[in-house]
């Protein structure tokens, strides 16, 4: 069970291989992709930045919590950093379990917690030319929603 920060393209098939287990009947995965819009604005690209050391510590803590809460056989997750384009994969979470209930529940728990707790930040670059660090506005309305805006 590992959570990693990477600056490279996420290698899904290699990660998926690490989930294989002869007792596993179910595998649930989640991928977060850079999409071309957010809250009504056309997005051109996204910049992700992480405090990698603490992000990996906290991400591994989340995987440990998932293993305690759910009946899991394997769990892996990776978050990419750097300048990503529309369609690029920013995050991958994969979970294997004997049955599908815990696989889905754990996969969702992990991505929810990663988004809420792990020190990774996202700067949106808009087609209109501006850019902004998500959740870091200090005037008017800002989102305190743990879910974050991307997915």
């Amino acid at each position, binding site marked *: 069970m590992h959570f990693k920060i990477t600056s490279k393209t996420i290698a899904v098939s290699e990660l998926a291989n690490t989930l294989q287990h002869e007792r596993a009947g179910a595998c649930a995965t989640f991928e977060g992709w850079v999409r071309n819009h957010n809250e009504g604005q056309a997005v051109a690209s996204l910049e992700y930045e992480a405090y990698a050391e603490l992000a990996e510590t906290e991400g591994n803590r989340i995987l440990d919590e998932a293993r305690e809460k759910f009946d899991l056989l394997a769990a892996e997750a990776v978050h990419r950093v750097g300048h990503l384009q529309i369609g690029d994969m920013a995050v991958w979470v994969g979970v294997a379990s004997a049955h599908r209930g815990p696989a889905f529940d754990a996969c969702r728990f992990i991505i929810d917690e990663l988004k809420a707790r792990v020190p990774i930040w996202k700067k949106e670059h808009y087609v209109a030319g501006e850019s902004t660090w998500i959740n*870091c506005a200090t005037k008017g309305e800002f989102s305190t929603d743990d879910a974050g805006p991307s997915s």
Partner: protein
Amino acid sequence: MKTLTVKYFAILREQRGDAEEQLRTESVDAQSLYEELQAQHGFTLPVDRLRAAVNGEFRPWPAPVNDGDEVVFIPPVAGG
């Protein structure tokens, strides 16, 4: 006086114009250190929207600091 390393990420890095600095300070905790640095660099985020990390672990405010510590102020996260 103590010597601390401060690392900046995301909006704080941009507002500071640097990713890391060593500094000498009288501050006894990360909270008073942030207020000191905020006055100096014009950070827009109030301290109550940040979390503190000391030596690679989250610490509750005010987060005491000692000579040689590495301090990071964590803006609201937005992974995924």
